[in-house]
C-alpha cells in the first residue's frame, strides 16, 4: 500500500514536473511563427544541442572529450562535399553521409582513444580534432582553406523550396530530430548497457572483474556520441550555408562541454536547455556587446560552476523542491 502510494506520488510529481518542459518545447516550436529571426538561431541551438547530447553520453562515463568538434566538422564537410558534387544536393542524403562519415571516423579514432581515461582521453581527442583543423585549413584547393566552402540550399525529397519554407522545414525537422535523439539517449542511459557507463566513471576495475569490457562499452558510447555530433554538424552546415575549419576548432569542442555543464551535466534535458540558453546569450551578447561576448560567456560559466554546479536543470530542480514537499505534505494531511 505504502509503495503504491509512493508510486502514485512520484507519478503526480513527475507529471507536473513535465508540464513546464513540455510548455517550453511548445513555446520554442511556435516561437518562429511570431519571431521569424528566431528560426535560424534556434535551429543552430538545436544542432549544437544534438552535439552536446553526444558529450553527455561520454560524461556519464566520466570522460570529457575536448575534441568532439572533430565529428561535428567532418560531418559538416562531408555534407558540403556531397552538396557540391551534385550541384545543390538532397537534404536527406547530405545528413546521411554526415552520419556515416562521422560514425566511420569515430570507430577508427575510438579504437585508439578508448584506451585512455581522464585528461589523456580529452587531450587525444583534442589532438585528432586539431589534425583535421590543420588539414582543412592547409588544403585550400580542396576545402577553400579558412574561407571555407559554400553549401547551396539542398532539395528536400526532390522538392526545391524557397528560402523561407526551407528554413521552416529545417527548423521543425531539427526539433523533431532533437526530441527523438534526446528520448533515445535518455532510454539508452537508463538501459542496463547505459548503467555500465556510470560504473566506468566510478570503478572500472570492478567492472572488468564482472567480465564486462570497459573499452568495448566505451567504444559504443564513443560512436554514439560522434554520430550525434555528426548529425548536429550536418544540420549546422545546411542551416548556415557555409562550412569553415572553425567547425573543428578546439574552442568549439570546449563550447560543447561548456553547454553540457551549463545545462546540467549528465541530463538529457539539460543539453537542450543549455544549448538554447547559450545560443540566445551568445546572440544577444554579440549584438549588444560585440567586443566582450566571450567575456560575458566566461563569467556566465564561472557563475554556474561556482554557484550552481548542477547547471540550469539543477536550478529548475531546486526551485521545484518546495513544491514537491508541499504536495507531499498535503497528501499526508489528506489521508
Amino acid at each position: 500500500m505504502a509503495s503504491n502510494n509512493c508510486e502514485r506520488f512520484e507519478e503526480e510529481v513527475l507529471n507536473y514536473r513535465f508540464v513546464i518542459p513540455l510548455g517550453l518545447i511548445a513555446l520554442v516550436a511556435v516561437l518562429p511563427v511570431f519571431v521569424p529571426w528566431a528560426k535560424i538561431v534556434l535551429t543552430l541551438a538545436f544542432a549544437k544541442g544534438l552535439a552536446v547530447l553526444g558529450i553527455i553520453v561520454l560524461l556519464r562515463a566520466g570522460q570529457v572529450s575536448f575534441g568532439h568538434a572533430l565529428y561535428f566538422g567532418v560531418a559538416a564537410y562531408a555534407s558540403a562535399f556531397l552538396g557540391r558534387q551534385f550541384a545543390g544536393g538532397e537534404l536527406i542524403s547530405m545528413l546521411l553521409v554526415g552520419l556515416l562519415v562521422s560514425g566511420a571516423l569515430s570507430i577508427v579514432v575510438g579504437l585508439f582513444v578508448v584506451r585512455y581515461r581522464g585528461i589523456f582521453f580529452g587531450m587525444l581527442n583534442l589532438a585528432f580534432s586539431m589534425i583535421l583543423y590543420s588539414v582543412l585549413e592547409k588544403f585550400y584547393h580542396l576545402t577553400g582553406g579558412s574561407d571555407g566552402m559554400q553549401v547551396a540550399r539542398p532539395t528536400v525529397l526532390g522538392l526545391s523550396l524557397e528560402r523561407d519554407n526551407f528554413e521552416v522545414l529545417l527548423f521543425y525537422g531539427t526539433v523533431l530530430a532533437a526530441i527523438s535523439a534526446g528520448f533515445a539517449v535518455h532510454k539508452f542511459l537508463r538501459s542496463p548497457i547505459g548503467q555500465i557507463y556510470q560504473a566506468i566513471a566510478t570503478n572500472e576495475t570492478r567492472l572488468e572483474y564482472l567480465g564486462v569490457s570497459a573499452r568495448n562499452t566505451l567504444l559504443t558510447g564513443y560512436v554514439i556520441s560522434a554520430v550525434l555530433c555528426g548529425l548536429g554538424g550536418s544540420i549546422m552546415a545546411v542551416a548556415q550555408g557555409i562550412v569553415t575549419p572553425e567547425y573543428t576548432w578546439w574552442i568549439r569542442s570546449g563550447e560543447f562541454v561548456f553547454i553540457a555543464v551549463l545545462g546540467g551535466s549528465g541530463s538529457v534535458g539539460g543539453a537542450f536547455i543549455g544549448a538554447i540558453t547559450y545560443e540566445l546569450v551568445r546572440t544577444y551578447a554579440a549584438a549588444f556587446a560585440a567586443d566582450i561576448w566571450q567575456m560575458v560567456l566566461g563569467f556566465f560559466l564561472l557563475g554556474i560552476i561556482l554557484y550552481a554546479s548542477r547547471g540550469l536543470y539543477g536550478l529548475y530542480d531546486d526551485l521545484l523542491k518546495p513544491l514537491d514537499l508541499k504536495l507531499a505534505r498535503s497528501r499526508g494531511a489528506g489521508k
Partner: protein
Amino acid sequence: MNIQLIALAFFDGVAYAALVFMVAVGLTLIFGVMRILNVAHGSFYAIGAYFTVSVGGAIFAAGYSHWLAFPLMMVTAALVGVVIGGPIERFLLKRIYAKEDVLQLLVTFAVFMIFEDVQRLIWGAQPYFDSSALTLMGNIEVLGISYTAYQLLFLPIVAVAVLIGLRLFLRKTLAGKLVQAVTEDREMATAIGIDADKVFLITFVIGAALAGFGGALASATTSVVPGMGADMIVLSFAVAATAGLGQVEGAAVAALLIGLGRSFAVYLMPELSVLVPYLIMLAVLLLRPEGLFGKQQLRKI
C-alpha cells in the same frame, strides 16, 4: 636537403623548442602539483607578450636604452605570476579543488575566454612588433649561415637555466621539497603539517610567471597577434602530454622533439608542418600511453 638547410632547420627548431618549453614546463608543473590542466596558461603567455611589446615600445619611444628590454622581460614574468596568477589561484581555483576534474578544467577555460576579450579590449586586434632584444644581440655566423644570436644562443641558454633552476629549486630548497611532497601525496603532506594551500599558490604563481616569461621572450621574435595564446596552449598541451604530465625534465625533451620535428617539416613538407607536433604526440602515446617519462598510475580497486 643540404647541410646548410639542415643546420637552419635545426636552429629554428631549437629556438622554437626553447619557447615552447618555457610555457609547457609551467603547465606541467601546475598539473603535477594541483592536478589541474590550466587552459588559461595560454592567456598568461599572450599577456606576457603583449605587455612586453607595448611597455617596451613606450620605454624606447621615450628615448631610454634598448637594453632595458631584458630586465623588462623579467619584470613582465613577475607581474604575470603575481598580479594575474596569484589572485586567480587565491580567489577562484581555491574554491573548486573539491569539484570534479571537468569543472576545474572548465573554470580555467572560462578564465581563458574572459582574458581573450580583455586582451582585445586593451590592445585591440592589430599586431604589435618590437624586436629590440633580437637586433641588439646581433647575428652570428655558423656553417656559413647568419643566424640571430638571440634565437641561437640566448633562448636555449635561458631555457636550460630555467630547467636547471627549477630542478635545483625542487630538489635542494625547502620550499621545493614541500612542493614535491605535496605532488607525491597531498593527504600525507597535509597530515605532517605542510600548508598545501600555500604550496598551491606558490606553484601557480611560478607556473604563470614561466608562461608570461615565455611570452615576453617570444615577443622579440614574432609579431604579437590575437589568438597566439590559443595556439600556444594547444601546443604546450601536446608537449606536456608527450613528456608525461607532471614531468619537468621530460618537458624539455618533448619540447625539443616537437620543436625539431616541426621545423624540419617546415622545410621538407610545409603543408604538414602544423600537424607534426600532434603526430609526434600520437606516435609517442601509442607506444607509451603514459607519455615518454610518465609513470604508470596505480589503480584502486
